[in-house]
């Protein structure tokens, strides 16, 4: 049984979240009902290449930023 102490506390787009150990960035994105292919992803201040999004596992304190195109001049 996974207790709440075993969840990892991370930040995604400035909001605190808890994820199970072993969760990849891509998995987190899908849990948020988003498509990893439609955005840019930063982990701890570094932009991830698409293959890194699927391969990178989150750790306690991980900071994720999900950024996409919006209207602008």
């Amino acid at each position: 049984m996974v207790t709440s102490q075993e969840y990892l506390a991370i930040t995604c787009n400035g909001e605190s979240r808890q994820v199970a150990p072993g969760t990849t960035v891509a998995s987190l994105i899908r849990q948020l009902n988003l498509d990893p292919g439609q955005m840019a992803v930063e982990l701890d201040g570094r932009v991830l290449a698409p293959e890194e999004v699927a391969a990178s596992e989150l750790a306690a304190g991980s900071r994720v930023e999900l950024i996409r195109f919006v209207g602008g001049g």
Partner: protein
Amino acid sequence: MLNIAGRNFRSRLFTGTGKFSSAAVMKAALEASGSEMVTVALRRVDLADPADDIMSVLDREHFFFLPNTSGARDADEAVRLAHLARAAGGTNWLKLEVTPDPRTLLPDPVETLKATEQLVAEDFVVLPYINADPILALRLQDAGAAAVMPLGSPIGTNHGLLTRFQVGIIIEQARVPVVVDAGLGVPSHAAEAMELGADAVLVNTAIAVAAEPVKMARAFAAAVEAGRMAYEAGPGEQRSQADASSPSGGLDFLHDE
């Protein structure tokens, strides 16, 4: 045909995607404009409303996306946005916008030059947004900018080509395309920029906030075409003294008593 960094454009009107009242209006207006390159910004995904993706309505086969670094206050922030743009869009083209003061949205020349040098070294196609400073424009071209984008007047002010004299100098001295960007408020402003010899213009606010954006987009398209055609047609000079349009001879019947 306009060529920037090896890419051809039939339309010399570039457009922004901001400030439209809805995605549907934006799509209709941009299609009416004939524009082939549109700017987009980079922002956090709204986790509370993830389906709100205005960019999904634009066909990327039809519109080439030019990500901007709006929001960047210095070169470091601009470079960070550039990396995100490349990851989000699979494009290395970039409108470099470094604007530390939200009241004026004027571009920082020092940070813009610094970011251009770094991003050119990282293989970006950099189109820097600048004040109409001819010396800065030359420095940016030397640094490898693919075009220069001098402002007509500050973003969103609709004051037109307040910088016409300096823009004229930039055009005269430029070795890369010159795109007049920002402050063009009505189509005659865009026509004026094209008559001056600009290679293209970028318009966002004037179209987006018009009462009828689709009609305004068509008007801008017509103005850009007219201005460019006039420039190519070789306009007459401005004179200080009148020069009659009708003949001066054959008037003795009228003038002699």
